[in-house]
């Protein structure tokens, strides 16, 4: 197993997040213990961001080198990213139902996240619309770059511009979690790193699997 240090680290960090996340003292807010969700729900989104960044860099690498392996990585990365994004939205809706009374509030942060996911769905649709490998790789690489810029705009820029949001971190402060209590940070940051590494591990597995699949297909065609 290659590069096993980050894979083991991800499991260790996540185990720590579970053990510590439920046992530390958290500040007394009106949402009570559900605040602990922040160690897991936010992790989904940061995992998606990390994987989409990997996809973005792969697309750029593809455009400059033309090697199909980068296109493979870009595509699989979008798949993994979309998966984590969907998990993020589901966990968010679940949490929202108990916190705000409804699964979806008309909130720029939420809508922005949903739209970003739509952009990447459109990427997957685009890929299915082009049969030729080489063309598909080039077109989707170009679209992927736009998609990433839109993602950054929607999760980074727009929430900071709006002042009246339900989701934490409006106005000043980080759109993910606003200002966080110091004790919680000791669990939060390692948890995020753990989730990011886990998602990169999933990506690593998927890319390797796809490579093997392609290899076997080529052998069968001979």
């Amino acid at each position, binding site marked *: 197993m*290659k590069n096993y240090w980050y894979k083991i680290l991800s499991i260790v960090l996540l185990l720590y997040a579970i053990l510590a996340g439920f046992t530390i003292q958290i500040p007394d807010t009106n949402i009570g213990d559900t605040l602990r969700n922040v160690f897991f729900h936010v992790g989904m989104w940061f995992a998606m961001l990390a994987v989409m960044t990997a996809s973005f860099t792969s697309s750029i690498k593809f455009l400059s080198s033309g090697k199909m392996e980068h296109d493979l990585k870009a595509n699989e990365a979008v798949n993994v990213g979309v998966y984590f994004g969907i998990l993020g939205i589901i966990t968010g809706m679940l949490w929202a139902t108990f916190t705000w009374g409804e699964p979806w509030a008309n909130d720029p942060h939420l809508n922005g996240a949903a739209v970003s996911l739509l952009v990447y769905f459109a990427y997957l649709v685009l890929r299915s619309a082009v049969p030729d490998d080489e063309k598909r790789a080039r077109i989707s690489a170009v679209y992927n770059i736009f998609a990433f810029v839109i993602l950054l705009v929607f999760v980074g820029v727009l929430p900071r511009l709006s002042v009246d949001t339900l989701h934490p971190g409006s106005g000043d402060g980080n759109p993910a979690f606003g200002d966080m209590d110091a004790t919680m940070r000791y669990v939060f940051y390692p948890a995020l790193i753990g989730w990011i590494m886990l998602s990169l591990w*999933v990506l690593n*597995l998927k890319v390797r699997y796809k490579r093997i699949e392609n290899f076997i297909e080529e052998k069968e065609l001979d």
Partner: protein
Amino acid sequence: MEDQYKIYVVVAVLSVILIGLAIYMFSLDRKISKIEKRIKDN
């Protein structure tokens, strides 16, 4: 069981789930490595 200790039940459950998933992912990883090695050697 006292009420305050019930949270540790949740901790235990989640740890089991995580460790189970970790074992699964490690075994998948090892399987893929084995095939990759076979391809490289052929």
